[in-house]
């Protein structure tokens, strides 16, 4: 201790630093102790790299908050092994349930088994695991049904125009069940309309920006009269714009050069394209419904119920006609609002 000019004892620099460190440690302890709440749900995502995942995490967080639940978040950064370790840590933490968005449908099976063994309910968000004897429930969009309804809206518009159309589809990764479901939904809708729609190009993209661009460019060169296009994901919208603009085919609905265009997901880019009338219909995964359902299912399994392994999100189709009435259910709209606030 030092003494000031009045003889009062004052701490020296070392004692002051030590005191501040102790105070900071003591002050931080209650925060962590608070995180030891009784009703806790772990939300384990493989990344927050896309708008969809960020919106999904926010939707789950908002739902848990509205119920007064505690959320423990962990991101595996696309590492199956890290995600497995996170699941085991959450089990050790004795969480009341786990909501997981896994990287790999096969590699997640041991994590499900570990949760089963510890009687911790586990629900997959938006992506189902591979077939196995382990029990979990996956909340997934009805990709085929939503795509069919979306393409049907485009077909109805095409029929109303009285013209005949040449169609193309941008398919995702052929190893991805979501991509296959969307492709099948497209086929379900266009097959009965074969009298007015001829499918001239089925373009595999492997969910790759480069392959989407190259595939669509080649298809447009081979079939310059393509005027009906369905994209398997909204991330492709800017690429479609990039390809169609130099060909003088990127025009809003109502323009004679407009290409009938549909897509899938419901992101902010899709909302903007719908608003500008370049996009005619968008199949939307009802993210808020999926978030709420995931939490409901965790609670149901925890209460001893055994729901079916797949829980479908029926989704919705957003068109220019219903845009203003249903856009609040479109997760991309909430993202779009944030960007334009």
């Amino acid at each position, binding site marked *: 201790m030092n003494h000031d000019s009045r003889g009062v004892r004052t701490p020296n620099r070392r004692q002051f630093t030590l005191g501040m460190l102790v105070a900071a440690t003591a002050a931080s*302890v209650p925060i*962590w*102790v608070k*995180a*030891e709440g009784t009703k806790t749900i*772990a939300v384990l995502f493989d990344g*927050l790299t896309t708008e969809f995942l960020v919106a999904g995490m926010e939707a789950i967080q908002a739902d848990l908050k509205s119920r007064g639940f505690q*959320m*423990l*978040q*962990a*991101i595996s*950064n*696309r*590492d*199956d*092994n*890290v995600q*497995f*370790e*996170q699941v*085991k*840590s*959450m*089990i*050790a*933490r*004795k969480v009341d349930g786990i909501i997981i968005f896994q*990287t*790999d*449908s*096969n*590699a997640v*099976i*041991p994590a499900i088994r570990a949760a089963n063994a*510890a009687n911790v309910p586990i629900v997959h968000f938006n992506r189902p695991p*591979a077939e196995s004897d382990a029990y979990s429930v996956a909340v997934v969009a009805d990709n085929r049904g939503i795509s069919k309804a979306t393409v049907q809206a485009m077909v109805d518009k095409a029929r109303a125009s009285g013209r005949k159309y040449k169609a193309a589809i941008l398919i995702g990764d*052929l*190893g991805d069940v979501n991509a296959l479901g969307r492709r099948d939904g497209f086929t379900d809708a266009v097959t009965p309309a074969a009298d007015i729609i001829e499918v001239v190009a089925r373009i595999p993209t492997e969910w790759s920006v480069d392959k989407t661009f190259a595939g669509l460019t080649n298809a447009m060169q081979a079939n310059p009269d393509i005027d009906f296009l369905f994209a398997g994901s909204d991330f492709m919208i800017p690429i479609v714009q990039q390809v169609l603009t130099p060909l003088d085919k990127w025009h809003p609905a109502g323009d004679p050069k407009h290409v009938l265009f549909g897509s899938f997901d419901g992101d902010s880019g899709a909302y903007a394209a719908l608003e500008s009338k370049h996009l005619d219909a968008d199949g939307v995964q009802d993210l808020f419904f999926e978030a709420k359902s995931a939490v409901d299912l965790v609670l149901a399994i925890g209460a001893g119920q055994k729901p079916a392994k797949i829980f479908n999100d029926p989704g919705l189709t957003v068109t220019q006609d219903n845009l203003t009435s249903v856009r609040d259910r479109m997760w991309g709209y909430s993202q779009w609002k944030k960007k334009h606030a």
Partner: protein
Amino acid sequence: MTDANAATAGTGVARRPKRRPLWQRLLLSEYLVLWLSVVYFAIMVPIVPAIASPETFRNILSDLLPLTVVAIGQTVILIIAGIDLSMPAIIAMASVVGASVMTGTGGPLAGSPAAMPLGILTMLAVGAAIGWFNGFCVARLKMPSFMVTLTTSMFFSGVAIWYVTLRSTTTSIANLPRSFVVIGQGDIAGIPNSLWLTLLIAIGVHLMLTRTVLGRHLFAIGVNPRATQVSGVVIARPILLAFVVSGLCAAAGSILYTGRLETGSPILGSNILLDIIGAAVIGGTSLFGGKGKVIWTVFGVLFLVLLDQSLKLMGLTLFMVFAIKGAVILLAAIVDAARTRITGR
């Protein structure tokens, strides 16, 4: 040369070695990281009580074993003042090639009792081959290990993904034989099977480093490769063998990781490079070469896994976890530099 020997060297007069200050003795202690782990654990118990649960101890052990195996391989490379950035790519490559041999879904050995042993041999062969290639480029072509292993890492990471697309309709290879999966998951009387493999590798590498001529050459190369060469050692061979050992350790780690996930994945271990190098450096293995022990690396892995577990249990965001782990590894590198300065080399 010990401190006592150093004190008498060149004078011929026996003098008592100068006693270092307490902070220097602590900093230079072999067990510094072990004590830090104990202190850290004691601090965390009241903050996150779950860290003291039997499940967490089991998780720590289960997470520690494969990382230890891989980090031991990195330790050997660091001892020769090199670095192996290709270990995650070797893990991924060994995982998918081994899984494609063993898988019950269209694998050439599907259902055969030979699937497991041949699958393991294939994985080890992949690790050894990539390690040999790295070693050849470093030892014979005199390329910097940083550059060689960075490029092989990029190359084999890509090849692993491409290989899976040839062998599977999904992004990974599943349906592996039970006899293989139990290596990564199973236990005998509560002792994980992976512990035996880890012990075998740890003891083997420890003996190689401390009881063989090869081990002495590796340390000598790490301290001063030119002096080692002038002393009559053909340094290319030990360097090449060090990279083969590193590749084999990565492949052995891949066996454990693949077994516990029951899946051959091309992105397996894609984010653990910092943990691998960090564990070795935190343990005390010098980034400047010539210094390192298997047991130090085990302590380093223990500290890193303990830190990781506590952060997971607290439910901190990814950004916080990255920031804290990065800071700890940076601190370890600073401590390494300080130790090197204190010891005068």
